[in-house]
Each structure stands twice: as C-alpha cells, then as structure tokens.
C-alpha cells in the first residue's frame, strides 16, 4: 500500500500524484519515443503506420471524451468535426498557407463550427442530443457533396503533404517523421487536457455532467460552459481530422461517415468513460481489431489454404468483440486497469469480490 502525504497545495495540483507515478509515465514516454527504432531495425514501417493511426484516433477520442465523458453530452456526430478540420486543412494548404498555421487553424475553425452547431442544440439532453448529432452526422456526406468546389465532392480530394519548416512529411515516404509529428500533437493535447481538468474550466464541465441544477446554483453558466466544451471537443476532432487526412492521403464524401462517428463513441466507452486514458485504451482496441482480423484471415489463407470471404464478416466480428468488451468490462478497459492496479497495491489484502458490482438501478432520464 502506498500513502501519499500531502504537505502543500502543490501536492494536489501537480500533474503526478507521487514520484513513482512520474517515473512510470516517464518510462512510457521513452517507450513511445523509441518505438520507431524497432521498426527501423526490422525495416518495415507498416505497423508503425497503424500505430500512428491509433494515435490519431486517440486525439479524436480525447475530443469526444471531453464532451461525453467529462461534460456528459453524448455526440454521435464527431466525424463531422473531423471532416471540417480535414477539409479546412486541405483548402488552407491549397491556398498556400504554411502547415504550421493551417493545421491549428483547421482545428480552431472546426471548433468554431462546433460551437455554432452546438448553440441551438444545447438545450437537449441524453438521447435527444445524441439524435441531433446523429442527424448532423448523416447530413455531413450530403453537405460534402454540395460543397464540391472545396471538397471535391464524390470524386474526392487529395491531401497535400506536410511541409514543416522545410521538412517534407508524408505518411508513406517518411513514416517516422509523421509518427513523431502525430505523437507530439497527442502529447500536447494530453497536457492541455490534464491542465483543464485541474483548473476551474474542467471542474465546471464535470459539475454540469453531475448536476446541472447544482452547477447553476454555483454560478456556472450552462450555455457558455457547454459551448466551451463543444468548442474544445470539436477543435480536437478537427485536428484529428486534419491528421487523418494526411494519413489517408485522399478523402471523399464517404470518409467521415456515420460509422466513424459511431466508432468514436464505441471507442471511448470501451476505453472507459470519464478518463483521459480511456481515449487511448479505446483507440488501441479499435485500431488493433481490424489489423488482427486481417492478419488472422491471411494466416488462415496461407497456412490452411482456407479463404474466408464473406462480406460484412469484418464488421460483424468487430461488433462481436465489442459486445464481449461491453458485457464483461462495463467500466471500460481503464476500469479493468484500475482493478489490476488496486490488486497489486492492496496485495495480499485484496478480496475477490471487491469489485463485484452491487446491483444497480436506473432512474429516468426524462426528468431534466
């Protein structure tokens, strides 16, 4: 067991609770920084590209986590904000704006767009908000087609390469540089996110999630705070969308569809709602399953000469795995991680039923 003695206010405000924690996160940082070395050694960067993809998903996931996990506003339309970020980025780069300016700007414009979308629907709760954002997500593809001069419509648009102070970065030509770029953005956003949660802004988000009435009675302006959360969330999604564009190289009206929005929500629930870690755990699962399925299939094909080719099998298998995750780990992967950690911290006093859930009962959402 570990006891943390707090001797100053800093102890509560600091990023890490104790030195061991800081050491662990330091090691993690070293690991992710050193990961490309392995791929350089084996001379195949394919998997590194997948890892970069996971990081991009995690960036979008953090955006959605802030809105859904910390402010309590579900959204089934985050792919729309990703699309916004992606297309703004393409157009700015096309207009000759340097990447260092275009990239943040694409996030901010997606954020502003998110706020604009959010303001009329902020009175909605739960299912209704989910539905309104769902409608938005469905309409996105139509709007992308309508805005053909900027988006390329059905034919699609190519995404220019990144030119960062003269360094050319392309997902395929320079996978390592692209990885480090995405990693940098992800780490920066994690830092911003952590800062937010330890300051008044973040607390006002969670206050709204837990009790709107109380939040108002404490002087929190619901509309402004929710709009802020929407803004930050859409900004992160927009940045992820811009990176996604660079990663895909080519985007059409079907790239940012409803399935992507749904996947994002699935991701943060599986990862663990209400934890920054959850966005990463979820992204890892969502990123790994398709790779695993594809590998499994080619393994079957090469080893046993069994060719499984049923349309829809991937998504069905994917869905089945998700069902298992939700059934067996309702608190998300981060919840499982916390249990494992507690087991070791309390050893040997851990009780088998310690995390057995007491029966729980729901009350209506219709009282708001």
């Amino acid at each position: 067991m570990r006891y943390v003695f707090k001797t100053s206010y800093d102890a509560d405000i600091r990023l890490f609770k104790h030195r061991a924690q800081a050491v662990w996160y330091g090691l993690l940082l070293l690991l992710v920084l050193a990961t490309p070395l392995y791929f350089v050694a084996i001379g195949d960067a394919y998997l590194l590209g997948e890892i970069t993809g996971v990081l991009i998903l995690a960036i979008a996931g953090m955006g959605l986590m802030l809105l859904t996990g910390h402010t309590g506003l579900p959204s089934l339309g985050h792919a729309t904000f990703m699309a916004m970020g992606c297309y703004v980025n393409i157009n700015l780069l096309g207009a000759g704006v340097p990447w260092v300016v275009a990239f943040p700007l694409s996030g901010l414009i997606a954020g502003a767009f998110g706020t604009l979308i959010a303001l009329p629907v902020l009175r909605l709760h739960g299912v209704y908000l989910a539905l309104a954002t769902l409608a938005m997500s469905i309409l996105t593809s139509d709007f992308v087609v309508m805005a053909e001069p900027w988006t390329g419509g059905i034919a699609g648009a190519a995404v220019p390469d990144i030119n960062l102070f003269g360094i050319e970065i392309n997902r395929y030509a320079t996978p390592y540089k692209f990885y480090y770029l995405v990693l940098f953005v992800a780490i920066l956003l994690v830092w911003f996110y952590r800062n937010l949660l330890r300051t008044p802004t973040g607390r006002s988000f969670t206050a709204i999630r837990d009790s709107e009435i109380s939040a108002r009675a404490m002087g929190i302006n619901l509309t402004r705070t929710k709009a802020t959360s929407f803004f930050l969330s859409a900004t992160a999604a927009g940045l992820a969308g811009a990176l996604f564009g660079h990663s895909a190289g080519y985007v059409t009206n079907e790239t940012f569809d409803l399935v992507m929005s749904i996947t994002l929500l699935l991701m943060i629930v599986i990862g663990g709602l209400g934890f920054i870690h959850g966005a990463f755990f979820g992204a890892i699962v969502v990123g790994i399953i398709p790779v695993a399925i594809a590998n499994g299939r080619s393994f079957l094909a090469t080893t046993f000469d069994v060719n499984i080719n049923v349309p829809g099998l991937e998504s069905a298998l994917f869905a089945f795995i998700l069902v298992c995750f939700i059934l067996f780990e309702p608190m998300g992967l981060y919840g499982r991680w916390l249990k494992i950690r507690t087991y070791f911290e309390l050893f040997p006093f851990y009780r088998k039923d310690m995390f057995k859930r007491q029966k729980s009962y729901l009350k209506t959402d219709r009282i708001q």
Partner: protein
Amino acid sequence: MSLLDIQNITLKFGGLVAVDNVSLAVEKGEVFALVGPNGAGKSTIFNLISRFYDPVAGTIRFDGHDLLQNAADQVPGFGIARTFQNIELFEQATVLQNLLVGRHRHRQTGLLSNIVFSPKAYREEVRHREAVEEVIDFLNLQPYRDKMIGGLPYGVRKVVELGRALASEPKLLLLDEPASGLSVEETQDMAFWIEDIQTQMGISVMMVEHDMGLVSAVSDRVMALSDGKELAMGIATEVQSHPAVIEAYLGTGEVSKTGTSRA
C-alpha cells in the same frame, strides 16, 4: 436596508398558487427561519431567490441588486449560496472537487490560461485551495477529503453540501432542511456550525427547517408559512406558541403503542 428584501411575491403552478403575496426581509447578520407544513411553499421561496422559478408578481432585491433582472447562474455572483432539500452534489467527484466548484464565482482566469496552466492560473488554484481547506477544517471534513461523493453516507453529504455553499464565501446562505435525516448528535453539530457561520463569519442565514429544536436554538426570527401565505412571524417562541402554527404545523401529543400520551 435589509440584505434580502422580498416584496409581495406570488408564484402559480398552473392554477395552483404556490406562494401567495409573501413579503419578508432578511437583515444583515441574522438567522432567519421559514417553517410550515409540507407543501407550504418554503422551498419554492428558495427556488424563487435562486431564480429557478419566475414569479408572477412581486420583487426580490438583494444587497442593492434586483434579482429578477438576473439569471439563475448570476445569483451566486452577488453572494447567495444555497443547499438543497434532497442534496444535489456532484456524485462522480471527490469532496475536495465539490468544494472547489463552490469557488466558481471567484474564478478569475480564462480558458486559455487554464489550458496552458499559466502562473496566474496556478496562483489562483492555490488560493482556491486555501479557502477550501479552511472550510474542510471548519466542518471537520478531513477524513472524507479525497472520497467520492457516491460512497458517502447521507449525513456527511449534508455537511459537504454546506461546505460547498460556504466555499463560495457568500453574504447570504440559504439552507434547505439542513437537519433532515441527521441524528440528534449531528443536528447539534449543525446548530453549532450555523452559530459560528453567523457570529464568526458574519454570514446571514436563511433556512427552511422542521426540527423546531434547531430552529429555536439558532434563529433570530421565524416566519411560519401555510398554503403559500404568511401564518405568523416573530421570534421562535412566539411563533411556536401561535395557535394557528400549532394547529397547522406542530400538532400536540405523542405517539405510543399504548395510545397514552407520554408528553
């Protein structure tokens, strides 16, 4: 001038008159209690002050401000903090975090400095924590400081809610049934705290309470309401002995299995 001045306030729900032409004033530094039968409109008056409801007639002035001109989330800014009858805490947060939200009205940093955690944000954070730790000390909440609200017993939650209101350093504290569900021992603690809040912190208190022991122990003036109307007004003993109050609210005699009164 009174700190809180309510004149001829009336509220209707559909055809039902919940508050009927009530006037009252809370002076600086006093403890003012509202008593009365269930459904008399006591909590409704609190909700009117908090601007959760719009009155159909009347005025509410606080410390020189016309509250009716302001939205619910602006009310705390003037220095009014409140608790709720059925406890409205932030369940997924710790006691400390709940109290820190109480500091929201003293927030001075913006979004940007929060995100990058600027030195200014850091200094503000330390100030908030100092204020909150004082409240934790005052209410003996140290054992629960880092506990999640979800797992705390009812009595502790009541105290946390009081703490959250205090953390905002209000001029007027609205307490909705502070002693309901508390044991005799805890009610006594509550009485002492209310006394200290009044005398040491100089905060005026307005409370709704059924425990006449607590009401008479701490309040300077008591108003009895029934059916949304004023029934009696005065010091605790006067109101308690008012025949209409006894009839509508207090009742007489006691229950026992033998049917005889043991009063």
